[in-house]
């Protein structure tokens, strides 16, 4: 089916829901095709290729919402879906804040956002397999201590998303994405360590070279060998871009409207206040062409935009959908996100920490004794209190240089104090996914070991 067909189908579902008594309705239809190949120790391990479709509807009876979804896109299947949503809406409670965006708020970003590239679907299977092979081979070739591998994978997908609502919005867009990753295993005596590296993009032409990905993955695994567990102490902590991104993910949870209106975030009520060091600027921008976090409109049909969340240390905006904005007496920031149906949640576009002046080398060079964190584990972030305690691995820094690998430790503190304690933001910002951050230095955290 074409984009136009899906748009028509989504509009038909909305009309059907209205006809059956819904005051408002919104419908999402999605279609996706995926391909993946994994090569392990130079042999193909898995090859997967398939596609699926689904539809979802959300209705409002008065201000009572009901949602339903189906994988059956026949007229009967869609009619059952609509009836099911209406049946549920009779059981929910009137919520004065429930509703769709105002008509004037609906729309789509003009111009080409570079979300779809023909070269992804056009890539021949043998080329995809070869890229995975080259990626793993490059990792295995780096050092004799790279003795094993969990393989290298090439994966790609092309997707279509159509959305229509009862306030007249109808929009659809196609996306493509592809990626390559590898997980080499390094061994030295009894010490065995793995790490990974990856590249992902909306066009095959924008992927990093397989050899480059493989080499970095191997170097990362090698530098983790023979780790030591250090004594417990307070020390400066450097987050490299990958782990800094994970930290930004926690900040996202804390500025998301859902947590704010429930007073379930340590940043509740802090709008306009200084919450971080002056070197911290956090931006969410779903309009940056070609990037993985871009889209023409959010999952309620509000045009994508750029929002400065933290402006030189000051909390300047929460990230909101229509519902959370109404709860807080604010306007949506176009951050509605959901799957096929349900009440919208809050998501992000390209969420990134603006870069600073110092190179990662300069930042590390400034640390007399501290930890460079290259891996974070576990779920030990409490957004309500800001308490932060996560498993960590990395490199111990002395006099500005890595001296040995560290693992089996935790780093802990409080997100509020950590944001305040950011001393340096690196100049090495790269957009590798929908969350991006450069190297960060936090003045002091508890590193717990022996």
């Amino acid at each position, binding site marked *: 089916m074409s984009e136009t067909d899906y748009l028509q189908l989504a509009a038909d579902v909305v009309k059907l829901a209205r006809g059956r008594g819904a005051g408002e309705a919104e419908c999402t239809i999605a279609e996706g095709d995926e391909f993946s190949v994994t090569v*392990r120790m130079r*042999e193909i*391990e*898995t*090859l*997967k*290729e*398939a596609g*699926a*479709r689904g539809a*979802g509807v959300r209705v409002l009876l008065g201000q009572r*919402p009901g*949602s*339903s*979804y*189906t*994988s*059956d896109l026949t007229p009967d299947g869609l009619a*059952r*879906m609509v009836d*099911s*949503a209406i049946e*549920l*809406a009779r*059981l*929910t409670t009137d*919520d004065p804040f*429930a509703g769709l965006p105002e008509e004037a708020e609906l729309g789509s970003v003009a111009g080409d956002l570079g979300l779809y590239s023909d070269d992804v679907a056009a890539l021949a299977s043998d080329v995809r397999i070869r890229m995975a092979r080259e990626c793993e081979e490059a990792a295995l070739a780096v050092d004799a201590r790279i003795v*094993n591998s*969990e393989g290298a994978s090439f994966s790609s997908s092309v997707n279509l998303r159509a959305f229509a609502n009862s306030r007249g919005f109808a929009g659809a867009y196609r996306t493509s994405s592809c990626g390559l990753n590898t997980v080499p*295993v390094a061994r030295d005596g009894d010490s*065995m360590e*793995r790490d990974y590296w990856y590249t992902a993009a909306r066009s095959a032409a924008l992927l990093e070279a397989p050899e480059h990905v493989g080499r970095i993955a191997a170097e990362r695994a090698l530098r983790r060998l023979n780790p030591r567990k250090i004594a*417990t102490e307070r020390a400066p902590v450097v987050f490299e871009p990958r782990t800094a991104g994970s930290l930004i993910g926690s900040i996202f949870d804390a500025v998301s409207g859902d947590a704010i209106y*429930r*007073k*379930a975030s340590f940043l509740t009520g802090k709008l306009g206040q200084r919450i971080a060091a002056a070197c911290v600027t956090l931006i969410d921008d779903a309009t940056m062409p070609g990037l993985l976090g871009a889209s023409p409109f959010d999952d309620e049909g509000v045009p994508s935009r750029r929002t400065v969340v933290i402006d030189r240390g000051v909390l300047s905006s929460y990230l909101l959908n229509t519902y959370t904005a109404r709860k807080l007496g604010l306007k949506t920031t176009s951050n509605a996100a959901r799957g096929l*149906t349900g*009440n919208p949640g809050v998501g992000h576009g390209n969420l990134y920490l603006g870069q600073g002046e110092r190179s990662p080398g300069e930042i590390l060079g400034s640390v007399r004794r501290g930890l460079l964190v290259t891996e974070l*584990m*576990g*779920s*030990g972030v*409490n957004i*309500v*209190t800001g*308490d932060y*305690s*996560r*498993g960590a*691995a990395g490199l111990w820094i002395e006099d500005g240089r890595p001296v040995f690998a560290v*693992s*089996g*430790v*935790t780093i*802990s503190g*409080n997100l509020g104090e950590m944001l305040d304690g950011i001393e340096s933001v690196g100049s090495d910002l790269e957009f590798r996914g929908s969350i991006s951050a450069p190297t960060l230095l936090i003045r002091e955290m*508890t590193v*717990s*070991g022996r």
Partner: protein
Amino acid sequence: MGLSQSYIAAKFGIAERDLERYLAEALASGGDYADLFFEHLATTSFSLDESIVKGATQGVSMGVGVRVISGERTGYAYSDDLSPERILRAARVAACIASGPSKVAKTGLEEAAKRNLYPVVVAPTETELGGRVELVKRADGAARAYDARIFQVQVVYADNLRHTLVATSDGTLSHDRQPLTRVSVSALAREGDGPPQRGSSGGGGRVGLEFFDNDRTPEYFAREAARQAVLLLEAVPAPAGEMIVVLGPGWPGILVHEAVGHGLEADFNRKGVSAFSGRIGEQVAGPLCTIVDDGTIPHRRGSLNVDDEGTPTEKNVLIEKGVLRGYLQDKLSSRLMRSPATGSGRRESYQSIPIPRMTNTYLMAGESDPEEILRSVAKGVYCKSFGGGQVDITSGNFVFSASESYLIEGGRLGPPLRDATLVGNGPEALKWVSMVGNDLQLDLGVGICGKEGQSVPVGVGIPTVRIDRMTVGGAA
């Protein structure tokens, strides 16, 4: 013939000769083995927030996955359209993994012996919607009534009913009806204008709705969540460094799930990338530790009559008195390692390739009195509940995050502690287990385990256990 009792076969008019034709197509290019996995999933959920039922969702999805194995290679394709043309097309795509003369699947599919670990006459998904909405309202009322300091309550009720049908080229046929339900409660407490604290609880299983009247009520989960939130208002920062840790019974069983369970999944061991690879017969835990993965416990969240490859689940001993005994196998690893199947091949949905997974993983009861274990510790940390965990199976390093824990002072519980992550190393951590209680408990039934992007419901369990050395990552 068992196929007539299959919900999926009846609903979509699938006959045995159809299954045989699809399997033949899957093996048309050679290949050692092929299987078909049909799935029909119906779900319902209700969510309550600010005492308002704000969300309600129902849905249906279905599809079939076709797998072809050739040596160590797997080809996989799926379709959400169950018409013969689309299934045949998926079979041809999956067949591309092999290259050789066609093989013949065994005909005359035979059904595995039947048992029913979750004989739920009416699955929650099949009941009146009104009765299920009441559950979230009851929980809300109970949490708010618990203490005036509770100011926010969120409740989620979710159920699903999953029907599966598996047909294999080695001639086996199985089908299953898998009900699953849960209630989860999260509560926020605040003292005056002070900072809030969150508590959470929840439970369920492969049970009928009567579970919430007879076994564990929504009010029980609500009071637990509220109690935890109020308790944490008094919490002090957790200590940092190596110390004695006592784990309470139930949820803390996440320790065995992370510390040894994942590392014993056969795919990692077949490839030699697990910290436990090649260590069968070695002492990897203290002699008091016997750890099993048991998919056969009636009504448990992690239990299955048959796994997602059609193999009956079992009670598998992973570690016996500290000695590593076996791995968790799916069909592929079992064949390549020439080791018996353990009924551990699971997948998130028809869109996913099955891989070795846990079901209900627990450490068996010992002989110590739990009180005596606590009394034996002069200074340490007692953990009652956990939020989640993660493991790096190659290095063996694992973490799990305590959501309710206490300082132990002079053999007694001291003040509650703020969130802290505990870390250890798989093959080493359990060597420090010095006392095991006689009070084994399984968790309440809300566990979800993720691996390679696939989520499946699981259970964990543990008695009270003393670990003489573990790193606690507090901020104090």
